[in-house]
């Protein structure tokens, strides 16, 4: 494989399929600036920036190097904290961090510097506090309380000088050209493959149905680092042509399976601001820059955040294998815990999300112990089709309430024909219906009792809001993710 190492063309001819970027840096290069905090993509100490050419422009993406396969860098340029201070001069982000007293123990600091560096490079207009805290949601600091880090980020990103050391795109051009064909490192029993086209992907997966398909590795990375599952056959789909496409037409949105959350965030938010807010709260910037909607669907997690939303929106899934394609409603894909309707050699190709109709009212809420970068205890996606103040039809799905993302069909049935004139009067019925729909489990995220009670709270919240909206009013029910703000 060929990648850039701070702009320098670098060739790796031997590697184990599961070698991570962090191990490459620390164990191979002996570059010790990048730290391992948790080795599961949750603390951000290992944040590095990957630079690549997108639509002819250099784009900077912060990722967690601890769970990223080194092979996924093929054709891209890797920049680490060791690279920023050029000829004895601190980078503006580093200078601001030092000036603002933004490091104490210093162990998380390289990760913060790199997360801010990505923001700095991508910044065009004024960067506000929300952009900073969002950009830092994946970086944990246990010492400072964050205030000086936020201020350092604001100071640096808003004082950006024109031109920078890493701005040249020639090297990216060259890397892109050199890596336009399929990559295969290893042998029949152990390999890292990065097919360049969908047909090649279908073919190699047909030959190796026991291989693991990896996009962002935000889940699979943990199999490697935590379960010590040394995967021998990895098919990386990040370089498949067209696999990152997000396309809109008159009827809806088609998200290709390799599109990251970041790629799809804006288009999804356009359907409804609540979807944008839920996507914003999935993992962190580092996770969203790597993780994909397709992966979120394909791994079948009962607490994946996008499937309940997509089910409520009645999304359609396209699966592909060497022999051809088939389509199904997304909700039918999830059979049981850990079990999806995917045949050997078959992979998720894309998902189609239909537009909302004019009288559709959508709401999505995510509940977790912490607002940012947490896994949902309960997630609601709800589409109510109104006829005046009456619910003509409801399509309501939950995450975290069952072994799979699942629709609340009793609730949908019960709400059909209900009036939103006085939503409080629906409370008891909602409670009863949810109990018929779900028997959630208790785990470290929430008890079964809380899940049911909070699910009821979320449904009521959506009814209060939509009821007020239908009445031309506004119900102030939220602490975060204000719809006005999200759609602005």
């Amino acid at each position, binding site marked *: 494989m060929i990648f850039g190492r701070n702009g320098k063309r670098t060739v790796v001819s031997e590697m184990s399929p599961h070698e991570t970027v962090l191990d490459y840096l620390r164990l191979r290069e002996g570059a*010790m600036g990048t730290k391992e905090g948790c080795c599961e993509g949750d603390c951000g100490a290992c944040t590095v920036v990957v630079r690549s050419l997108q639509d002819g422009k250099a784009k900077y993406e912060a990722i967690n190097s601890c769970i990223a396969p080194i092979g996924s860098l093929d054709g891209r340029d890797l920049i680490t904290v060791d690279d920023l201070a050029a000829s004895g001069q601190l980078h503006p982000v580093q200078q601001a961090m030092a000036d603002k007293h933004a490091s104490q123990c210093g162990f998380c600091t390289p990760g913060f510097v790199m997360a801010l560096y990505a923001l700095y490079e991508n910044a065009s207009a004024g960067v506000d506090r929300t952009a900073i805290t969002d950009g830092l949601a994946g970086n944990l600091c246990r010492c400072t309380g964050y205030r000086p880090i936020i201020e350092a980020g604001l100071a640096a990103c808003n004082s950006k000088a024109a031109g920078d050391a890493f701005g040249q795109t020639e090297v990216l051009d060259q890397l892109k050209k050199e890596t336009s064909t399929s990559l295969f490192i290893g042998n029949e029993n152990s390999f890292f493959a990065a097919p360049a086209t969908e047909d090649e992907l279908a073919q190699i997966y047909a030959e190796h149905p026991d291989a693991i398909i990896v996009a962002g590795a935000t889940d699979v990375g943990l199999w490697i680092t935590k379960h010590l599952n040394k995967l021998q056959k990895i098919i990386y789909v990040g370089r498949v042509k067209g696999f990152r496409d997000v396309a809109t037409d008159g009827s809806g949105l088609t998200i290709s399976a390799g599109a990251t959350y970041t790629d799809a965030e804006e288009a999804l938010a356009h359907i409804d601001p609540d979807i944008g807010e839920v996507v914003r709260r999935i993992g962190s910037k580092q996770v969203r820059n790597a993780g994909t909607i397709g992966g979120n669907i394909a791994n079948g997690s009962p607490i994946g955040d996008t499937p309940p939303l997509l089910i409520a929106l009645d999304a359609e899934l396209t699966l592909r294998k060497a022999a051809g394609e088939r389509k199904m409603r997304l909700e039918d894909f999830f059979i049981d815990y850990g079990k999806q309707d995917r045949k050997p050699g078959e992979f998720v190709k894309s998902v189609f999300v239909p537009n909302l109709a004019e009288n559709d009212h959508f709401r999505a809420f995510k509940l977790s112990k912490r607002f940012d970068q947490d896994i949902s205890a309960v997630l609601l996606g709800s589409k109510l089709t109104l006829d005046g103040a009456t619910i003509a039809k409801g399509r309501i799905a939950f995450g975290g309430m069952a072994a799979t993302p699942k629709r609340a069909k009793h609730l949908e049935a019960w709400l059909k024909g209900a009036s939103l004139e006085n939503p409080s009067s629906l409370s008891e019925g909602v409670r009863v219906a949810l109990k018929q729909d779900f028997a959630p489990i208790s785990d470290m995220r929430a008890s079964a009792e809380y899940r049911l009670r909070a699910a009821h709270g979320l449904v009521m919240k959506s009814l209060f809001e939509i009821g007020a909206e239908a009445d031309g009013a506004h119900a102030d029910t939220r602490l975060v993710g204000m719809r006005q703000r999200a759609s602005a």
Partner: protein
Amino acid sequence: MTHRGLKLNPPEVQEPRAASHGSVGRPLKHDSAELHVQGAAAYIDDLPEPRGTLHVAPGYANISAGKFKNLDLTEVAASDGVVAVLTSADIPGVNDCSPALGDDLILSPDVITFHGQVLFAVVAETREQARMAARKAHIEVADQVPHVTVADGKAAQSSVLPDYSFLRGDPNTEIKSSPISIRDSFHVGGQEHFYLEGQVAMAVPGDGAEMLVYSSSQHPSEVQHTVAKMLAVPDAAITCECRRMGGGFGGKESQAAQWAALAALAAHKTGKPAKLRLDRDDDMRLTGKRHDFDVTWKAGFSDDGVLQAVDVNLAARCGNSADLSTGVVDRAMFHADSSYYYPHVRIHSERIRTHTVSNTAFRGFGGPQGMLFAERMMDAIAFHLGKDPLDVRKANFYGEGRDITPYGMQVTDNILPDVIERLEKTSDYRARREQVRAFNKANPYLRKGIALTPVKFGISFTLKHLNQAGALVNVFADGSVQINHGGTEMGQGLYIKVAQIVADVFGVDIDRVKITSTRTDKVPNASPTAASSGTDLNGMAASIAATTIRDRMAELAARLYQCQTAEVVFAKNHVQAGESKVAFSELARLSVLERVSLSSTGYYATPNITWERETATGQPFLYFAYGAACSEVTIDTLTGEMKVDRVDILHDVGRSLNDAIDIGQIEGGFVQGMGWLTTEELVYDDKGILRTHAPSTYKIPTAFDLPEDFRVELMPSEGNQADTIHKSKAVGEPPVMLAISVYSAIFDAIASMAKPGTKTLPPLNAPATPEAILKAITALREERRV
């Protein structure tokens, strides 16, 4: 000096120091700041590995309690890259890594008393090989039903240490005869340290029995002694070094020792350097946390809310061994008064043994748990009487004639009334109380709450002999200065503060002062860097060492330039001796020529510490650090979610040595405390296995959780009443407890939903997660329905 939102100006110095050009009192950067931002500050795992370095991984069974009958390590030993497998039989000396009581096994020979007890350790060529091999053991166990919770341990009458009490007067009778009395019980959760750098050590064998151990430890001397004892060699053969930790927070006070011991044992066994770095999940499973407590209390008070008597029982989950639980639970007792006078009082404590990891030091060391009780009691009294909780607090503060703590120490430096009065004004508490009320009237879904709570934190180790420190200062012939002391750097800025102190002793610029790693061969028998005492102790010791050298240099200067010693002044990198003025570096050069020693140790033992635990008499603390915080929150009554809207902090650091460092400690401590009381929840299953052993499930605050409106001010101060270094005050731990204002504000928001006149206290446990909040709300709603 208010820092609001985005407008942080460099903190101003409160008043000029004696030497106004000096370093003390200036907001200097952390000494490693520029290295931190470049990733160039080396932590132990970043150090170059000596040739042939091996890697160690611990192995443990998947149960919490019982014995292992057969430990089959055949497959482990045969695994790729494995060089050795260590068991308890390999330990030549004492198999113990406890801080005091000899009850923590390095490698268990038979018993399993918690999930994560280390049974064996793999030594392999790579870390990955060691980790993979460690999972290949076949362990045959005879398990028993574990005691997981405080209640389990109590039911089994199992404790790690005897109960202990403070008693004054006749609280039981007085509570009964009080006009009003309340009883209540609640749970205070523990807390994972989540230092970003996990536990790590590297041991490098030297000549004969010598060993150099790099350990990420707050207590290198204890690591040294543990390793020596384990290898049955003299302490003098072992050196422990720590340049910096990637966070400690108490988690590396006693519990860094086991990992250093295992690395040393591997090095001893193989003759090769050996490194052990715990994987994050193992770190969280295998090392102790903040103690969680079951608190049961009753109190009697007047119609005005003035306490007459308090009786509280603090039952702590200590885990499977004592570790530091003597001091931790004592400190919970010492702070169960918070800032309030209890005329009649009983503070009882139980140190419960459970089959869980041994809980340990954590910033505040039990103090936060004790104080949380007192503040809940204040909120409860206010709730009961329908009064503003701040008024109830004020009515109960220590004051004249009401200034003896439950442990008999008189509070003589009480500045709290001034702190509270100032914060009440600057936070606009009263007007905002009205706004909160109005908001709650108008909004059917969201509720606001506000609370202003105090902090009074006792400074000194309550274990008397730890209140000592040593330092070593060297001046070189070129006038550069090297300092070393027993304190460790974990991010708190100790090194820079001590450097500032020493720079000013010599009147030289800070960049002339070279900071060096903490090493047991430079300063022996040091105390842990803990109890917020790092600067108080080591700053004083370093100042004494530097002053000894300066006095010698002054004497020489007086002789050379024919003036009185008292006329020699060290300032601005120069020495003024009578009419003559020489560069400091020149006087250093002359000192060498004139055979004047430029090296000195310094030693300091805190005065006036007279505490006797046996009799519960005397003075445990040199002084108190004070502060207060006002927090405003909003809760979502449909889901229990909570957001902190605004926080105002006023904190007392005496005369600050470095405002920037102190403010960093205050803000960081507050946010860490806020995490403890809100999102950070440790969940054990009924088998005693921790389910929240990674940042994916254990949630410390993120940048988003920092209140957007966050105002921090240092209390203007003439300086510490006690004779501390430059009249400064300790600042490491006290700010954690400022976060109790968030918990109280949440209580306030929930309480606003109560049916008028209800006496049912909202049952809010800590941490106040969305689930805990919704549960308390539900309890009030059900009360309304009745």
